């Protein structure tokens, strides 16, 4: 297939990925970032994404899967548009990380790796996100929210819901 005509990515991302493979001494070094950027746009690593990434890098789909399954941020099923990642590792745990997680579970009505029926939110308990001194902390997609209390949870969710309404 020709990548120009058959790409599963937007023209903007396709151009970015074209440049990405030329950035390194070896083309394959583009693999991990390419998978992450692809996931950012498509939502997950679908079969079509894996196939195109394999072709762009010049390795087999099996090799792509072999690498992709190693990295915890990469996923093979869709997540919500806003993926809420709650850290419960030690520094966050000591300052109420599990209470934050519980509150998100209650507010969203979903559990670990669950997704709301409207596809807007998913929830994930994650390992340390490097915000230990500002615990408890979460990430919604790539946005950090730190020094949280459970009472702030509804407001955070409302903020993202509001963003959706504004974009509609």
């Amino acid at each position, binding site marked *: 297939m020709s990548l120009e005509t058959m790409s599963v990515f937007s023209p903007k991302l396709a151009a970015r990925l074209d440049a990405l493979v030329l*950035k*390194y*001494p*070896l083309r*394959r*070094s*583009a*693999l*991990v*970032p390419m*998978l*992450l950027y692809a996931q950012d746009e498509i939502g997950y690593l679908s079969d079509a994404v894996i196939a195109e990434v394999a072709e762009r*890098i010049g390795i087999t789909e099996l090799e792509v899967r*072999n*690498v992709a399954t*190693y*990295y*915890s*941020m*990469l996923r093979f099923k869709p997540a919500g548009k806003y993926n809420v990642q709650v850290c*419960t*590792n*030690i*520094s966050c*745990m*000591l*300052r109420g990380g*599990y209470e934050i*997680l519980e509150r998100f579970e209650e507010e969203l009505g979903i*559990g*670990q790796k669950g997704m709301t029926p409207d596809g807007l939110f998913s929830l994930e*308990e*994650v*390992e*340390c*996100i*490097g*915000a*230990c*001194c*500002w*615990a408890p902390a979460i*990430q919604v997609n*790539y*946005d*950090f929210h*730190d*020094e949280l209390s459970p009472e702030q949870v509804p407001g955070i969710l409302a903020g993202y819901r509001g963003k959706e309404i504004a974009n509609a």
Partner: protein
Amino acid sequence: MPRLVSHPDEVKIVTRRFGQGAAAIERYLELGGYEAAKKCLAQGPEWIIDEMKASGLRGRGGAGFPTGLKWSFVPKQSAKPKYVLVNGDESEPGTCKDHLIFLHDPHAVIEGTIIAGLAIGAKTGFIYLRGEYRYLIEIMEKAVADAYARGFLGKGIFGSETEFQIITQTGAGAYEVGEESALMESLEGKRGVPRIKPPFPAVVGLYGGPTVINNAETIATVPHVIAMGAAAYAAVGSVRNGGTRLFGLSGHVARPGVYELPMGYNLKKMIYEVGGGVRGGRGLKAVVPGGSSTPVLLPEEIDIGMDFDQVGKAGSMLGSGGVVVIDDQTCIVEFALRTISFYQHESCGWCIPCREGTDWLKKSLTRFHAGFGEAKDIDNIQYLAENMMGRTFCPLGDAAAMPTLGFVKKFRKEFEEHLNGKACPFAKHLDLAVV
């Protein structure tokens, strides 16, 4: 936005540009930026390495290896290209210092990388950030682009004949990639599985070329060492431990935050004076001194200087400088379980003692904490952990075993209190969803 903190005992060297808009290149230049790189360009590699050796700067990633010595191991002549690789995969629980460096002073990382490149004769440097740090990657990429635009990177840096380029890289979620050989594997587009050593990266590293790998804090410190002079930098710290350290106070401390304190600063003072003591006026139960992989210290063991040697002598490690404070209302079994669950999740499975060991430890501790433990389990936990030590390619196995051994040895009584169907005395839940 992560909050910046301050304390009169701080000696602001690495953090001196924090909060001053130094991510913008004009501001960085106003604050004396890139002068150290220019000086190094004029002085040459031997001078740089001598300065680094004299500074007493030791690796801030956790191992504490002398930076100048590390750089001197790279062969002068090499058929393959040489590389500098900056480790910003910051993932050790309790550690968030590099987060602030990338946010507030990205050009210091670039300048340090240039200097490391000049020292070893590399033409390419890589700055690898963990995938979760997307906003920081964007800040770094902007800074790198600005440095190229000014001619500080590229074909002839600072108007010289010397070439140096920097390539940024993102990870995608993996603690183990913080280990240097796994980091190189990841950068080569593979699973972050560790390599056997030797050969060491200084001889055979990235793409098979000689490679120096330094933690982001180490690299960000380098321009300051050059700017203030090695002797002045060394004088700030303690014996064989030059300079300052970005200590991250977290957990049950009244004023958590990243504080830059001289190496050798007293841990007790750090917690009670700098950090304001235990939150809510509670008692101190334990301290994890250098990230989750370092063995726990008891309150009577914390009257020590925080440098690589003194913490080592106290039976733990300075590690990443992430000090986690634990109050007397915390269940240590639960804390040990949460710690081991992390290592079980992050073990890549390549080495059997780590893969099986972390899994069994998690299972044993889960059962134990739930009140279904037996007396022999305590010894078994210890036996399992002891048999992981030193038996894996990378230190993840040790990182899981060492804190576990510390918890069991120092809090055996609390483990015993969980025995025979008794509920956890702290009646806390720990619903371990992370798999």
